[in-house]
């Protein structure tokens, strides 16, 4: 049986998808086209003639040491924050799946951080981890100057990783929990009868059976940490100290809107876009064709 809804009038169908199409056009295709245009031209910020320069902007970007610094920082950031996010999410999801005390409450509470806007997360973390006044400042009382994200690049990097993961754990948590709950309970029970303890079952059964969810989340988390981390960096570190947290997405903003170098910013955002598109491609190509057991 054909279970798709069909519309008698094509106009109605167009009318219904139009709002979405218009949004996608205004907020994605148009800016993308604009970026491409800027990336291939040189333009004076205060008006004047626009000049077509081909790939020259890209050459400038790729020969810039600071750009490669931001690529390195971004990749490190994506790897550490994705690892932290997924490990924590899996841990929490398996706690909830095992119905440890209070799991009903956690199931709801864990999802809230995802609903909080990145700048708000940034603000909260900035206060909590402030070296002189935050909760963490007590560490500095015991070990002076151990923690200072305003001066120490590593501290700052750790701080944005924690903030980003804290926000992203919720998303992975929900998927891991759904994945764990989709594994028939009797399979883990059979393993318990076979003598496997909790960790052994996690390792031998639950993780392999979660593999499709795992790859999906891996790609999503890496993508998100490339594009969605702007708010956190902007509020907490502003890319500093000494560019230690100068992520690609933040550098685009600071070059474009602070440095007023639109062409460089546009070229960088095209590079980032290609990166994200290829991640998405990997996602569709390999993850959607996931292995189905049983």
């Amino acid at each position: 049986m054909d279970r798709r809804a069909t519309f008698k009038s094509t106009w109605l169908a167009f009318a219904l998808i139009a709002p979405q199409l218009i949004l996608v056009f205004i907020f994605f295709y148009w800016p993308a086209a604009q970026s491409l245009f800027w990336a291939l031209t040189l333009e004076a910020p205060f008006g004047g003639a626009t000049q077509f320069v081909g790939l020259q902007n890209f050459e400038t970007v790729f020969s810039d040491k600071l750009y490669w610094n931001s690529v390195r920082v971004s990749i490190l950031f994506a790897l550490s924050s994705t690892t932290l996010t997924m490990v924590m999410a899996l841990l929490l999801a398996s706690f909830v799946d095992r119905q440890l005390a209070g799991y009903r409450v956690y199931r709801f509470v864990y999802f809230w951080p995802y609903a909080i806007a990145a700048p708000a997360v940034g603000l909260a973390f900035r206060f909590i981890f402030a070296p002189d006044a935050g909760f963490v400042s007590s560490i500095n009382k015991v070990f002076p100057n151990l923690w200072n994200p305003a001066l120490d690049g590593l501290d700052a990097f750790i701080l944005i990783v924690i903030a980003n993961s804290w926000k992203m754990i919720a998303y992975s948590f929900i998927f891991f929990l759904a994945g764990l709950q989709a594994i028939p309970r009797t399979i883990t029970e059979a393993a318990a009868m076979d003598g496997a303890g909790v960790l052994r079952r996690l390792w031998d059964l639950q993780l392999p059976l979660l593999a499709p969810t795992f790859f999906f989340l891996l790609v999503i988390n890496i993508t998100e940490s490339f594009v969605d981390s702007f708010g956190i960096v902007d509020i907490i570190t502003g890319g500093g100290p000494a560019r230690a947290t100068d992520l690609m997405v933040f550098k685009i903003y600071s070059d474009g809107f602070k440095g007023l170098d639109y062409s460089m910013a546009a070229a960088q955002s095209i590079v980032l876009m290609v990166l994200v598109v290829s991640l998405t491609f990997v996602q569709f190509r390999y993850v959607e064709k996931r292995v189905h057991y049983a």
Partner: protein
Amino acid sequence: MADIAISNVTKSYGKTAVIHGVDLAIRDGEFVVILGPSGCGKSTLLRMIAGLEEISGGTIAIAGEAVNEKEPRERGCAMVFQNYALYPHFSVAENIGYALKVAGVAKAERMRRVREVAKSVGLEEYLDRKPSQLSGGQRQRVAMGRAMIREPKVFLFDEPLSNLDAKLRVQMRLEIRKLHQRLGATSVFVTHDQVEAMTLADRIVVMNAGKIEQIGTPSEIYDRPETLFVAGFISSPPMNLLEVTIPVRGEAHAGDIVISTPAFLAGKPGAAAMIGVRPEHLEISAQGRFSLQAEFVEKLGSVQLVHGSFAGRDFILQCPATQPVAAGQRLLFDIPAAAMHAFDPATGARIPKVQPAGRQNEPVAA
């Protein structure tokens, strides 16, 4: 030695009690079938023995040792699940050998035992397949093999045959029984299929609504149901039941029908009772004192069941397939006194027959 002693075991989920004080002693090497309608708590009881469900009250002891606080793996039980619960990403060999792998048995030894077990359940040629590449019956065998390889003290089965087709079910039933004879391990088998229960069990435990109704050998349960529930639940077609009053000893009245009950069927005159008689024990003859109009006839091969109503209740007669019967026809029959069962309608308890002088045993229904 692995006898199982269940004493006053209860189970509740939150405030809902689902098992209300069960006592059951299972002897070493015995094959016990727990039989009851859906939702009566059979699986729950089995899972408490396995250690998959916490015991809310009472104790369960295996081989003389209380296991309430023990992990499933410390109880020496193996379980076969209704949906088989095979590990989908493992091959047949890995599925069967998983318990040994967890126990740290060396690979060569493990493979040797896997092959041995696979041979005994007829799966040698399938060792490299994944469960999804097997038929239902083959999966069932993998589940059995996985349970066997641990050489457990106790086998637990939770409706392991209910997903198989009728023919395979009969075959697997036989294999389970043979396996039991070979290994001699104490076995507890849960089912709601009474034919399965009758053919497999040394003793049957009939459960209803979280309580045990009767424990006995298959013939005890069939010949002498202790409660109205057991009488109605065991055997197919079900026992015919009639609501009667007993104004005079020896006579039961159902509406204006008078059934002469044997003198030794006790009952205070005037009391109400339920009289039961199995369709296969009714005697159809031209001289019968009762009559029933056939409403429809169900042919089952060698016998046929004639459905109608008698004394205001649905009633079934069983007669040989050779006898010509058509719907609408009137049949005459008798109710042999020896085949009658009587129950107290208020408590559901069996009303025992009074021993007439000179007879020691209750006559077994013909």
